[in-house]
């Protein structure tokens, strides 16, 4: 079992629905977020390329945030999902510094918070809230080891990239291009 997500940049319109759906699903306080939108613009008018994409924790196989955590609060759960156990987190912020994706923040209650792929929903056979809500259906989630999962199927015939591959983190969010 290895959970992963593929996000189609050809369909994402950057509407931020994934952000607000995550906030209401996971009780993320206003002013904070576990996922966000990035826009890149290359070229000169009118020859320009725009990319919009939804970003979050990359649930890396080689996760620096897990390696650097002094208490073991930052850990890998079933299916490769990187989580932080609130009770074990002392809020030192080492994981925040180590993450090349800036995917973690300190919750006002003192612990570090981040995307969990909506583990509580996934356990029940549901999709993560961001995937379930996306009006463009640009996000595909599932088990990479299952060839019939949505994510495996779409990655079979599409080109994709990852973010900051040079960091050597082996990220598991794939951007279809």
């Amino acid at each position, binding site marked *: 079992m290895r959970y992963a997500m593929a996000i189609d940049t050809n369909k994402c*319109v950057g509407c931020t629905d994934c952000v607000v759906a995550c906030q209401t699903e996971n009780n993320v306080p206003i002013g904070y977020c576990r996922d966000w939108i990035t826009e890149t613009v290359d070229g000169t*008018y009118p020859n320009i390329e725009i990319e919009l994409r939804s970003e979050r924790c990359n649930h890396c196989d080689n996760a620096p945030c897990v390696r650097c955590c002094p208490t073991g609060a930052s850990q890998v759960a079933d299916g490769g999902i990187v989580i932080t156990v609130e009770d074990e987190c002392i809020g030192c912020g080492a994981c925040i510094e180590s993450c090349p994706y800036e995917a973690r923040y300190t919750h006002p209650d003192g612990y570090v918070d981040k995307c969990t792929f909506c583990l509580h929903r996934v356990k029940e056979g549901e999709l993560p809230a961001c995937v379930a809500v996306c*009006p463009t259906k640009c996000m595909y989630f599932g088990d990479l080891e299952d060839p019939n999962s949505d994510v495996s199927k779409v990655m079979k015939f599409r080109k994709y990239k990852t973010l900051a591959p040079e960091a050597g983190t082996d990220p598991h969010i794939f951007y279809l291009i």
Partner: protein
Amino acid sequence: MSTNRRQFIKISALGTGGVAMAASAYGFAGSFLSVFDSSDEKKSINMKRYPTYCEVCFWKCAAWTHVNEAGEIVKIIGNDDDPHCNGRLCPRGTGGIGMYNDEDRLKTPLIRVKAEDGGEDTFREASWEEALDLVAAKMKDIGDYYGPESFALLKHGSSGKHFEHLFKSYGSDTIGEPAYAQCRGPREAAFATTFGSWVGSPEPTDIRDTKCLVLIGSHIGENMHNSQIQEVSDAIDKDVTIITVDPRASTVASKSKYWLPIKPATDIALLLAWMHVIIYDKLYDEAYVKKYTHGFEELKKHVANYTPEWAYGITTLEPAQIRKTAVEMANAAPAVIVHPGRHVTWYGDDTQRERAIAILNGLLGSWGKRGGFYLKEKIKVPKYPHPPYPHPQWSWENLGEKYPLAQMGVTNELVNASIPELAGEHEIKAWFVSGTNVTKSIPNKKVLEKAMDAIEFMVVCDTMPMDVTGYADVVLPECTYLERYDGIRSATNREPSIALRMPAAPPKYDSKPSWWMAKEIGERLGLGDYFDFDKYEDVIDWQLQKMGSSLEEMQRIGVKKFPRTSGPMYFEDGEDFEFATNTGKIELFSTELDELGFDPMPVYTPHPEPEEGYYRLNYGRAPMHTFSRTANNPNLNDLMDENVIWINPKVAKNWSIKSGQEIYLKNQDGIVSSFPIKVRVTERIRWDSVYMVHGFGHKNEKLSRAHGRGANDTELISNVKIDPLMGGTGMRGNFVTFLTDNPNLVES
């Protein structure tokens, strides 16, 4: 110091200290119904869910409001069976919860207290009894003295419907909504003239099956018209060809095979050149044109000289690109949509531009075809019985009679009729404003303020202390859509469907649903027979029973679909069809416009261009906001808390302006933005125009998150070009320059 009678009250003067959780007068708490489906347990653990349809925009997506054990609304999820959202709300729908939680909401009725000795007017809190007595007494006085027609209703959305019923019962059909003359009116007039049918909402565009989608300035994806953007995404999966015409690299432009970065205000030239290529290169659907259209030969002659080379000099678009895109459309036909757009009041010749769009669809044979425009259908909701409405002596029709194609109240004419020196035979003396922030929806602020100053009485009903509430004599706090019943949603679609809105929580503070306000005012006016029900759910249940459903069923399922009864969605090959036009055909040559003395076929008219140092002000939407109503919503404000002004890097360099810098904007008439706006230097915009998202720059301090954030495009729109056909307000002929220093600083 302003000496206006209707002095704007900064609602900061409100003394709304403690939050009074006043017990509702209509016994709400007992009517809760558990619609929790135990088979769904794993989906909504310990939650109840209540059906609703969204009111954050006009798309009205059906959804489930989820409530936890403490009775708190925690999230809103789309209804899987709803054709408007297919189980997926947009960010505004998902963030609709913020409308309910916003602590800046209007909490209690307010009544203006006139200042003595030139001081500032204030509001005082009032009971519902007192506020409604006052509104009813004024309606009676104005009705007795001037006639009820002199009391106008400016409205939008579901709440407006209840007040529309009140006003028609009272004898006034002096009703208008900015959604027509400030938004989609021109396309409705143009499509009615061409196809004999309004476009309507949601648009009957068969995007999911189209092969070619042509967007004229329409920024789908930034305007978050839910099922429409979903279908664009489906079409992208099927390798659709999108052709986007926009001076700005919109989001959808970046998804397009062809982005035509047109010079602003020249769209009609491009549309005529496309017609030329399609006709003279014989790319049109010959059989369709022969069978269904009128005036092809006249059109052919009309566009003879409108070559792509001619259009090049006007639009700056290369002739080869114009030809190539015309061929793309023809190759896809009839599965092609030249989209009518939605907010189309741009330059004053908007009905003619929309006519050009309609004509192109006629030539390509896309109306009534799969992948083009489907034949829409809706189900009629039976009218709850009431006595016939009295016949007003005059109405919106008289005020808009100089616009032969106006099909609804022209708000700007209602405004003019409220100013004695501009009013004609009929004068408006009072306004009731429901769910529309007119200071941000109707342009030409000077005239608007003059009207609000001249009228004798003004009521505003809203959920939030929007800027317009500051001009009111009485403010009525409405509860949000999550706290009330409303009329059954029935909209045109591929197949008819209805949706129910019911409360998921009792109204917060001392807010009330508008159906209750309308009924209370009606009863005070002796119009009780028009409101022959105790609770609105009684009306809904009666209607649902007539439709073969029931309140109980709809509370359980939220959305119900009905089979089509009007026949197939598309024309069969060679099927006879009579269009509701003079000739019974699609009118390429409009006999109606010809008879009225207007151009029967569109012509290109050059529009004024900015002087040196000025840039055309274009405006649009962001996917997480609707109009000006969401700027203070805590969830949506968190996603975007201010607008910015997009400036091309070459222009920014000339001005030594950098991204993030705050500047003020000054328009061609010397009007300066009330607040500064941050700059976004970007290659996504042409050098001759600037762009900002509409709906920011709020003046009311009580909007704690939105006040003073960003700039208000509407206040910079003082040059308004009126569409002579339907009265729409062309708003894109305004030019701004930059003030890099704060103009409000005074040297000491």
